[in-house]
């Protein structure tokens, strides 16, 4: 094998530091302060005996005290459907800034503790994302506002209602929200606005899709976003759209995308994905072919692609590689007309118009683009908001009601907004936290968390996801729709309003109840039939009727046809000319991107999302300047081909701080990270960081806010900046990355064997390549079937009944991290904070390893989820001196925490480096509070303490213990779920269902969270189980990580296949 895979630069060069890191998992000194004082302390033998005697006696006396009396308090009136200790599941909806995902909340003894995707949803099909998984913690967020306030002072709801009702009226009222696609909420808004003449509703999205909306208005006459059918596309070209990570509705797209990526061995075929982008995004990392360009060239790339397909416009691309890439993509697209799709992440209407022209030329409309089902998750147009600021300044706004929007933080010119806000007499905020906008509002009535609310959402036209409360409100909050209805003088509260609305639409109460139980209504005809005026189109109607000036009238739901939209070419030439004349490229350009977890800042209060490593940079807890290796060399004199300089850059978390100045906007000081795949003249900085203490201790001083550097040009917010200067400073700042540890190299197992990758062409040519490899390795022991028994000196053990097994399809895995957060939640995995991650003390039971290979400037990326492999011949088990880790009869490598004495031998001996040691009392499991700030361990970060708050601890899974300091822990195959599933089967007196006919008794948390179904788990002894079927049907791609070590893992993988022309260097010698 001559292809080199590397997780970090040291590994690539095989530097000294890297070799050392691979040799020692625990590479720091023991946390004892051994100084002269301790060594020369005058403690004598007799003193020692005295202390020994005293402590023994004291312990005995303490122990002989009476056991404390514990109370057991049952319900006064037991609700019929609650059985203590048995979880209930309620279908509801996750809503964040227009993104709505159908979920099922697991409620144990009245507390929601876990979120799963709702498999009944035809949109997400049970998939979730890291953000959705983590959102349960925002319910128990200590930084939530707990009561209504006027000027910061607590008041009662009745009082604030009276005060606001008196203040409203006279002048027009403006309701400023993020995108709302809830039919009932829009109806309530209508009622409210109808009360106050001249009032209007403005939708503002921090994550703006103005370009797409305006371009669609120009091309199709509809200011709306269609559905994209990634599953039907054989060729996908994305120009800077991170559709698997952050673009529009990534959960939906991930599940559709995975359809085209799964391979049938008998007839291998898969979709082909080209990515043109400036920074290495999650989507780019999954692409078959990836080309890099400057942000200023985005338009040129789109035009060149159009030119190559239809001949319109002119190609202005000079870079040879890029040019070739465009030609290739164009050829593939043209060859697959009707099965091709081009998406673009730019917020520039002209570029999006060109993309529309390309899609039209490819007959995508009606095939891979569906205009009969609109994506309603984003509807805000930036100019509307700018117009609102003007109105506020001109005194034309009497009252501003804010819900879900936080322009004082996310608007590019926040100062203009905050200044204008001062001119508005009545300012009301419904936001749940004391964010930047809420801090400036006079009246604050915090909204419920979505898990405490009634409601609905229509993320796609015709599909409704319903929301029901899963817990009584924790604080004195109120649903914001209730406030609107109350102030508009409408009689019922929102719950009744919502119930009446849907009972009316669905015909009767039973239908409503069953819809609520399922959490979804997916029958557009039923909805429209009941809806006399087509309310299901209210969202799009409101968008369609918006005047560009932003003087939106009251939303009047009008019927819009759900039929397709017709394309018109009229303004394309204007767009082409505009792109041609647009700003020319500059020396260094900047892209503002969003991270999978933090987004536009909505995840910044959530420690799980901070601790989730960025899929590409593998960095936690910060934002930073991403630069290319070439820029590192030209600007900072770091040559990654030099061992010394590589180690110098990489070994220590301290990174030099750069001063990034955007011409005319200001500057920011941030540390840099070298990310291969970044365009040499481009740098990237993530949005959503740099919050203040008012938003809680978790986000306080984490990263820097770069929204002030974003610009608004009158039509749209531009997430790129030209004319950027980057200067070195002498400061350094620590960035906690995960990529430099948890690696393992021996003469027996090299990194390349942990994971396998090949191209589709290779696979077609030599389908048995991987199987042959495995056969060859097992040959001295009598071939693969005999390898298990012959490859070891240990005896063979029978595997009666259940033998748990897992299979991970590397082709479906997109590296999004939903599983990582799900694992944290399910297993009470602690948050350790940045200072601990810096010292390699991260606690992830499941991590997604990111491997680079090939070209340093534009490498190929492979993601591999790695958890405990539950080896049947586990190296960790036979080195444990106290047998704390041993094998269960069902194939689980089990960990008895109470038995563990913390020698860490097991972790040292684990070839996969998946065992995690509790260096400190992260979970508050020790009974001594001081243990969390023990000087020998170091002070733990505020986030760790936040996770130990009484409120936050409500999220803990009561079926899994919290581990105390000094014990080893690791993936348990979600043993609590295995046990629960077995019990369920036993109660019903039937065999375990593990995936046959898609019926499951047991699904691990990672499996259930995965939007692409990359992970299957079940009884490997059952020939019909999904995991066995997966292994049998994909015999040619199945492999075990480091199989040659004879660890006999119960986790198997399917090799990654890339749909690429040129054959990879991956070749087996001989």
């Amino acid at each position: 094998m001559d292809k080199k895979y590397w997780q970090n630069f040291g590994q690539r060069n095989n530097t000294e530091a890297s070799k050392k890191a691979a040799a020692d998992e625990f590479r720091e000194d023991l946390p004892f302060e051994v100084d002269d004082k301790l060594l020369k302390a005058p403690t004598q033998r007799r003193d020692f005996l005295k202390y020994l005697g005293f402590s023994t006696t004291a312990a005995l006396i303490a122990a002989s005290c009476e056991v404390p009396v514990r109370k057991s308090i049952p319900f006064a009136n037991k609700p019929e459907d609650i059985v203590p200790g048995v979880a209930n599941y309620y279908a509801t909806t996750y809503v964040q800034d227009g993104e709505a995902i159908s979920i099922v909340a697991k409620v144990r003894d009245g507390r929601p503790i876990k979120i799963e995707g709702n498999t009944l949803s035809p949109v997400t099909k049970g998939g979730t994302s890291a953000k959705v998984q983590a959102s349960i913690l925002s319910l128990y967020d200590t930084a939530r506002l707990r009561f209504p306030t006027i000027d910061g002072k607590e008041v009662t709801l009745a009082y604030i209602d009276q005060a606001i009702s008196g203040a409203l009226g006279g002048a027009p009222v403006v309701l400023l929200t993020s995108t709302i696609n809830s039919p009932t909420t829009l109806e309530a808004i209508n009622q409210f606005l109808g009360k106050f003449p001249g009032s209007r509703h403005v939708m503002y999205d921090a994550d703006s899709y103005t370009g797409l909306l305006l371009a669609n208005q120009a091309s199709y006459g509809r200011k709306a976003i269609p559905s994209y059918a990634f599953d039907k596309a054989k060729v996908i070209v994305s120009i800077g759209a991170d559709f698997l990570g952050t673009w529009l509705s990534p959960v939906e797209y991930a599940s559709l995308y995975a359809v085209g990526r799964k391979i049938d061995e008998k007839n291998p075929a898969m979709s082909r994905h080209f990515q043109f982008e400036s920074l290495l995004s999650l989507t780019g990392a999954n692409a078959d072919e990836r080309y890099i360009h400057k942000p200023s060239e985005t338009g040129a790339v789109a035009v060149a692609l159009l030119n190559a397909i239809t001949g319109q416009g002119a190609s202005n691309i000079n870079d040879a590689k890029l040019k070739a890439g465009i030609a290739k993509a164009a050829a593939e697209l043209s060859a697959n007309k009707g099965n091709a799709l081009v998406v673009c992440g730019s917020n520039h209407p002209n570029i999006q118009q060109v993309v529309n022209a390309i899609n039209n030329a490819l007959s995508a409309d009606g095939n891979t683009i569906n205009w009969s089902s609109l994506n309603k998750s984003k509807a805000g147009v930036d100019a509307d908001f700018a117009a609102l600021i003007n109105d506020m300044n001109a005194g034309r706004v009497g009252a501003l009601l804010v819900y879900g929007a936080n322009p004082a933080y996310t608007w590019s010119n926040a100062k203009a907004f905050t200044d204008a806000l001062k001119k508005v007499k009545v300012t009301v905020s419904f936001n749940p936290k004391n964010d930047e906008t809420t801090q400036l509002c006079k009246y604050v009535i915090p909204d419920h968390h979505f898990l405490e609310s009634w409601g609905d959402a229509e993320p796609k036209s015709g599909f409704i996801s319903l929301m029901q409360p899963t817990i009584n409100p924790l604080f004195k909050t109120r649903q914001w729709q209730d406030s609107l209805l109350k102030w508009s003088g409408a009689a019922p509260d929102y719950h009744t309003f919502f119930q009446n609305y849907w009972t009316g639409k669905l015909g009767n109460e039973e239908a409503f109840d069953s819809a609520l139980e399922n959490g979804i209504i997916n029958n557009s005809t039923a909805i429209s039939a009941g809806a006399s005026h087509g309310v299901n189109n209210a969202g799009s109607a409101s968008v369609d009727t918006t005047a560009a000036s932003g003087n939106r009238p009251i939303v009047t739901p009008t019927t819009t046809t759900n039929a397709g939209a017709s394309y018109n070419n009229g303004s394309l030439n204007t767009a082409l000319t505009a792109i041609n004349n647009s700003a020319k490229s500059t020396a260094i350009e900047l892209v503002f991107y969003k991270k999978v977890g933090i987004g536009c800042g909505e995840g910044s209060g959530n420690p799980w999302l901070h601790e989730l490593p960025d899929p590409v940079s593998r960095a936690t807890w910060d934002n930073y300047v991403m630069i290319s290796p070439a820029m590192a060399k030209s600007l900072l004199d770091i040559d990654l081909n030099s061992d010394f300089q590589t180690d110098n850059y990489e070994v220590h978390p301290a990174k030099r701080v750069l001063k990034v100045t955007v011409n005319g906007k200001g500057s920011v000081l941030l540390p840099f990270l070298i990310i291969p795949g970044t365009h040499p003249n481009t740098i990237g900085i993530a949005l959503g960081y740099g919050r203040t203490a008012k938003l809680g201790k978790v986000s306080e001083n984490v990263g820097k806010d770069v929204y002030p550097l974003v610009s608004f040009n009158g039509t749209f917010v531009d997430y790129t900046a030209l004319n950027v200067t980057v200067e070195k400073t002498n400061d350094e700042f620590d960035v906690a990355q995960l990529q430099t540890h948890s690696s393992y190299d021996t003469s027996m197992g090299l990194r390349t064997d942990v994971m396998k990758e090949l191209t589709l062409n290779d696979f077609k040519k030599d389908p048995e390549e991987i199987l042959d490899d495995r056969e060859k390795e097992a040959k001295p022991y009598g071939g693969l079937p005999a390898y298990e028994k012959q490859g070891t000196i240990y005896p063979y053990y029978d595997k009666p009944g259940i033998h748990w097994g897992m299979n991970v399809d590397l082709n479906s895995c997109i590296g999004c991290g939903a599983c990582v957060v799900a694992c944290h939640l399910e297993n009470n995995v602690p948050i350790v904070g940045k200072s601990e991650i810096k010292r390699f003390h991260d606690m992830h039971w499941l991590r997604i390893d990111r491997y680079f290979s090939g070209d340093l400037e534009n490498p190929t990326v492979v993601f591999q989820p790695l958890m405990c492999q539950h080896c049947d011949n586990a190296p960790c088990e036979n080195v444990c001196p106290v047998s704390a880790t041993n094998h269960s009869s069902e194939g689980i490598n089990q960990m008895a925490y109470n038995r563990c004495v913390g020698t860490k031998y097991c972790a040292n001996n684990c070839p996969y480096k998946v065992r995690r040691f509790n260096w400190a009392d992260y979970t508050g499991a020790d009974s001594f509070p001081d243990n969390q700030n023990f000087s020998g361990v170091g002070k733990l970060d505020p986030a760790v303490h936040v996770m130990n708050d009484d409120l936050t601890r409500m999220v803990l899974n009561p079926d899994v213990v919290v581990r105390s300091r000094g014990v080893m822990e690791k993936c348990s195959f979600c043993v609590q779920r295995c046990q629960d599933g077995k019990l369920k089967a036993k109660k019903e007196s039937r065999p375990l269902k593990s995936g046959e006919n898609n019926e499951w008794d047991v699904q691990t948390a990672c499996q259930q969270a995965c939007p692409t179904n990359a992970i299957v788990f079940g009884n490997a002894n059952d020939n019909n189980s999904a995991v066995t079927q997966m292994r049998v049907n994909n015999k040619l791609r199945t492999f075990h990580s480091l199989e040659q070590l004879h660890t006999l893992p119960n986790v198997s993988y399917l090799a990654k296949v890339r749909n690429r022309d040129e054959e990879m260097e991956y070749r087996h010698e001989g």
Partner: protein
Amino acid sequence: MLKLRRIAPIKIFTLLFLVGITFSKKSSAQDGHALFMANCASCHKVDQKLVGPALAGVESRWPSRDKIHAWVHNSSAVIKSGDPYAVSLFNEFNKTQMTPFPQLSDKDIDAILDYIKSAPTTTAATATTATGTATTEENGDKSLLFGILTLILAIVAFTLLQINANLKKMADDKEGVPAHEPIPFWRNKTYITFGTLIIFLIGGYFVTQGAIGLGRQQKYEPKQPIFFSHKVHPGINQINCQYCHVGVYQGKQATIPSVNICMNCHMAINEYKGEKLVDGDGNEVNGTAEIQKLYKYAGFEPGKPWDASKAKPIAWVRIHDLPDFVYFNHAQHVNAGRVQCQTCHGEVTSYNEMFQFAPLSMGWCINCHRSTKVQFENNGFYSMYEKYKEDIKNHKMDSVTVKDIGGTDCQKCHY
């Protein structure tokens, strides 16, 4: 031949049918009582007005059984239909509706009616003989016997040693060997060593036992806020354990009954007339006063309708408390494993005050897991253990214990 062949299946079918009928009839007659206890008893008695009317002679009050079926399934529909008796009944009971029981089939209701017919009209407190399964004391504690034997043998040995020493001395005297000054045994180093060793061993044994027992509370019998006698409830009155401990078949907790479950019966039963109640200290307890305590928690005044929302929970003292790192599930044992409650909780029906019967130690759990047989044949779950099926067939093993299916794995209980 042909005819026979045709007739045989018919005959067999008829036979089976008849048997089936006999059995089903029998079971439904038996079920009547059970069904009544499970569904009706909380609101109805046979001969006494409770929340609902007394049920004796119910059939004579209704025109037909069909009407009763309809009433039980959905009483409000019958009232709406304007049935005169239904309306009068509705008015008589302050317009409280009877809980609908759509899950009961007509056959079930018939069974209940049959039971009502046959039920004794006078509730003579039939003090059923608590069939305390006379625990066979045959294999009782033999350690005392062994102890005494050891002691006797030790004394014999000691005496023999003394005799031996004396004889040796006498022999030596005879042969003229100069004798050592005899050392009294309390200064004899051998004896001292032995003595110390024995004291150390015995002391060590008790210290270790004590240390192991730290935190365990077998026989813990705290005073509860209300004197609740299991002897009276499941014992004398034969209330099914599950009636109060509703979670025992479903979840990890058996659950202590909530106040509304107590009130199901105690709305009507407001005084105690049974045999004398004695608490752990030998003091007599006034049962009626204890019921009054319950009313206080429930916010109930006899004679007035009860508002369940006014109830306050009762803070019972917890007796069985496993550490947090142990996962125990009642449903697994009682439902799937069909273990009797008494196996771990003792002869509860004879306890006046509840106490911890079992040590709840890991050794105790594991020992049971080693010896208890699983429901291998009865539970369909085990059908996937094909190897064991084979082994049983080939007489390689005679039964499958919990241990065989991984009952001693660490992560069966610790995760």
